[in-house]
């Protein structure tokens, strides 16, 4: 076997601490090495041409390149090798930059280490097997989880490109938090007016299969080939028969037993309900927990009034299986409920602000509903306790955000903007009212965002006070807000009629469970992790699963929409070809050696190990063995390390190759 060794100086990056000509010279004498040369920039065109020329001239069988990390230029050198007729997996990269020159300063010792490192690679490349890339088919359908603005945007983009979409939403209607908002910053356009046309478009799109009141239960398979099990929860109403006339809702006698979660518990709803009038689909749900029929079987008024016989008390959950090639996560966020928590809770809550105790201390989404023309007060500012118009409102920012002690370390990003909007909306309707905002910093980066906050201060006379509020107490229907103006260095007490808390945006409480079901990593707060914080912000580390919106980190509407379109584009990149190519660095089980202990199945982080039966010709099962699904395997090698009988081998990194490398040291 003839091997070529190419040592790169990487400008001065390697050359400064490693004597590259000496390394090249020393490697000439290694057994099997036909040619060994150094060059200033091996990745440049002349460098690559040099490699190609040597491969052809010296009839080389394999090459070793001593350069930067394989993350950087493995592909470059493999391409050069392929162009000169060598299998790309007979190219070994020795990382002389990150593993040697960058971390040492003694030239003599670093040079010695570099020679050792190249020698190891030479021994490995001698044993490398030529491999061919694996091809897997692609199902050109997309699953979108979550029907808020991010999910809606992603579904529409993919569907408009001509690919089928399955959109799964947990709630009875799509629309998400955006449908609850009154107006949106920085333009103050009506949230529902811009959202509902898109909801209807989703509903009517021939390429979108909409599954509301449904949850993803199980995800099997791998990039391009996922099998998803979805639980379609029982509405107790036949979706095909219901016309959405709403007669059952108006006639239902249970009016005050359940809070309306769309109105953020500021109003009640009947036992049979649609979340809001513009719901898509406009099909009600019967709430089993409060409906009289499920208590004693007596009431049946809805059945009597329904002209379509759509009420079906016996309806059961349905499990639906869908085949998709890509998954877009768009599960959004929740607001941190900050009322006083029980002692065993991981959250501490803010007892000092009296949320949950004082009726007129509300959170941001509740204030959105109070400000909304379709809300419980029909857009008139009335405080929840007595329905009076508040003449003085205090807004408190960073409640739960940037608070290591009682909340979360991160900034929720949107609160500065929506608080300015809230104060502005209030001032526009209550001209003699006063609005105070307690803030720590104003973070208003974005197009026309800072101008918006300045407008609240300069044009609408909202008073901004820099400082955190310490405590809120109640005295005769007034809320005494104690703060400190840290800029003036003066204590400030405001007697407010109402207090609005800009509480932190947190991940959905079941986000971590869903992440485990889908098989993607998440951070300590429950937000899904992107593959790279800068260069791969849309992809999860699991192939074929993409992220959109606030499920990745707190985001406003434009950012969520942009991310959703990007996720749609990423899914469509997958669908651009009929077959997916992937690296053949996957584990393979030897059927003869495997004893079927399935330790590998337990340790595999990607769920790639399956159980296979070995049968005789007559169909009698002899034993069960492990089998690695090439599509799912990411080549991490955990199974190889754990196998007691050494019967799993990782292609390109088998035991023989690794041991030869170690022995060369």
């Amino acid at each position, binding site marked *: 076997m003839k091997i070529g060794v190419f040592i790169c100086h990487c400008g001065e990056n390697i050359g400064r601490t490693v004597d590259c000509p000496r390394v090249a010279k020393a490697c000439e004498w290694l057994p099997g090495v036909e040619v060994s040369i150094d060059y200033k920039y091996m990745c440049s065109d002349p460098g690559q041409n040099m490699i190609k020329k040597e491969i052809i001239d010296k009839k080389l069988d394999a090459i070793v390149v001593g350069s930067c990390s394989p993350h950087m230029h493995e592909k470059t050198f493999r391409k050069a090798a392929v162009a000169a007729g060598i299998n790309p997996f007979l190219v070994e990269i020795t990382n002389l930059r990150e593993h040697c020159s960058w971390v040492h300063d003694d030239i003599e010792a670093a040079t010695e280490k570099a020679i050792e490192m190249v020698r190891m690679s030479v021994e490995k490349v001698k044993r490398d097997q030529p491999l061919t890339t694996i091809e897997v088919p692609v199902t050109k359908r997309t699953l979108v989880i979550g029907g808020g603005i991010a999910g809606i945007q992603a579904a529409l983009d993919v569907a408009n490109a001509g690919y089928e979409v399955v959109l799964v939403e947990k709630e009875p209607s799509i629309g998400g938090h955006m449908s609850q908002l009154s107006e949106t910053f920085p333009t103050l356009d009506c949230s529902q007016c811009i959202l509902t046309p898109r909801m209807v478009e989703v509903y009517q799109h021939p390429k979108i299969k909409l599954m509301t009141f449904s949850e993803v239960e199980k995800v099997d398979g791998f990039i391009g080939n996922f099998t998803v099990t979805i639980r379609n929860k029982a509405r107790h109403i036949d979706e095909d028969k219901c016309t959405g006339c709403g007669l059952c809702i108006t006639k239902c006698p249970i009016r005050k037993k359940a809070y309306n979660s769309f109105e953020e518990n500021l109003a009640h709803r009947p036992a049979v309900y649609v979340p809001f009038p513009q719901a898509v689909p406009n099909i009600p749900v019967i709430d089993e927990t409060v409906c009289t029929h499920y208590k004693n079987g007596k009431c049946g008024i809805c059945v009597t009034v329904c002209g379509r016989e759509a009420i079906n008390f016996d309806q059961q959950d349905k499990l639906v299986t869908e085949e998709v090639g890509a998954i877009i996560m768009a599960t959004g966020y929740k607001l941190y409920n900050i009322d006083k928590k029980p002692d065993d809770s991981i959250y501490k809550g803010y007892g*000092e602000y009296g949320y949950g105790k004082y009726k007129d201390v509300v959170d941001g989404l509740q204030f959105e509903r109070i400000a909304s023309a379709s809300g419980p007060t029909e857009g008139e500012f009335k405080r929840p306790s007595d329905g009076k118009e508040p003449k003085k409102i205090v807004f408190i920012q960073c409640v739960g955000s940037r608070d290591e*002690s009682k909340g979360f370390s991160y900034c929720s990003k949107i609160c500065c903007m929506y608080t300015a909007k809230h104060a502005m909306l209030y001032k526009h309707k209550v001209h003699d009212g006063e609005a105070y905002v307690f803030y720590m910093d104003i973070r208003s980066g974005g197009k026309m965002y800072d101008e918006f906050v300045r407008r609240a201060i300069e044009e609408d006379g909202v008073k901004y006070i820099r400082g*955190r*509020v*310490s405590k809120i107490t109640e005295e005769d229907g007034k809320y005494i807000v104690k703060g*400190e103006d*840290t800029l003036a260095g003066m*204590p400030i007490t405001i007697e407010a009629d109402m207090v609005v808390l800009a509480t932190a945006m947190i991940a959905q409480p079941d986000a971590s469970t869903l992440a485990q079901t889908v098989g993607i990593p998440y951070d300590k707060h429950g937000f899904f992790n992107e593959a790279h914080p800068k260069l791969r912000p849309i992809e999860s580390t699991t192939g074929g699963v993409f992220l959109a919106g606030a499920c990745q980190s707190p985001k406003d509407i434009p950012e969520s929409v942009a991310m959703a379109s990007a996720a749609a584009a990423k899914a469509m990149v997958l669908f651009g070809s009929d077959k997916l190519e992937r690296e053949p660095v996957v584990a393979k089980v030897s059927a003869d050696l495997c004893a079927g202990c399935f330790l590998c199945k337990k340790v595999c982080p990607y769920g790639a190990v399956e159980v296979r039966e070995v049968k005789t010709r007559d169909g009698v099962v002899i034993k069960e063995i492990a089998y690695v699904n090439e599509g799912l395997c990411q080549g991490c090698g955990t199974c190889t390390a754990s196998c007691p009988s050494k019967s799993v081998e990782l292609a390109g990194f088998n035991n023989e190759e690794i041991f030869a490398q170690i022995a060369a040291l």
Partner: protein
Amino acid sequence: MSSHTHNHVHTIADDIKDKTFQDVSLCYQCGKCSAGCPVRYYMDVAPNKVVRLIQLGFYEEALKSTTPWLCAGCMTCSSRCPQEFDLAKFMDAVRETAIEKGVKVKDKDIITFHKAFLNQIKSFGRAYEVGLVAEYKLKTMHLFDDVDSSPGMLLKGKLKVLPHNIKDKESVKKIFKKTAKK
């Protein structure tokens, strides 16, 4: 790889860090401590500002302030701080440092009061209000301040004529002896 060597001077901020095991840089100046402080109105510098002065290296201004001496140690600030910065502990360290450095606190009567209080503890093992008042007034010569409040306090039983001793006064004395050396 180049390495940097710092000729680090041990500052008062470091000293306070050694005493409290927490870094003043933790404070991001939200002012929640000052907002909730029950004695804030009597202080010359807001509690968060004392931290700010130490952060910026204006040690003299911080140590001269009456704020640390008026701090009642009620811990409201410490329990509400979003950064889990124990401000009550910090104030303790500032007081200690002020004494160590011999800084003249703006209101010298405050220290007289603190010393009179400690003397009662030293003698009786617990607070003896009449003794405290007597010592403080004699030393400061504010003989007739607040006299009008004493009948009310006597009636409510807030001022006991005779001191109450504790069982083991000797141990308390030992504590004073040991800590006084430092």
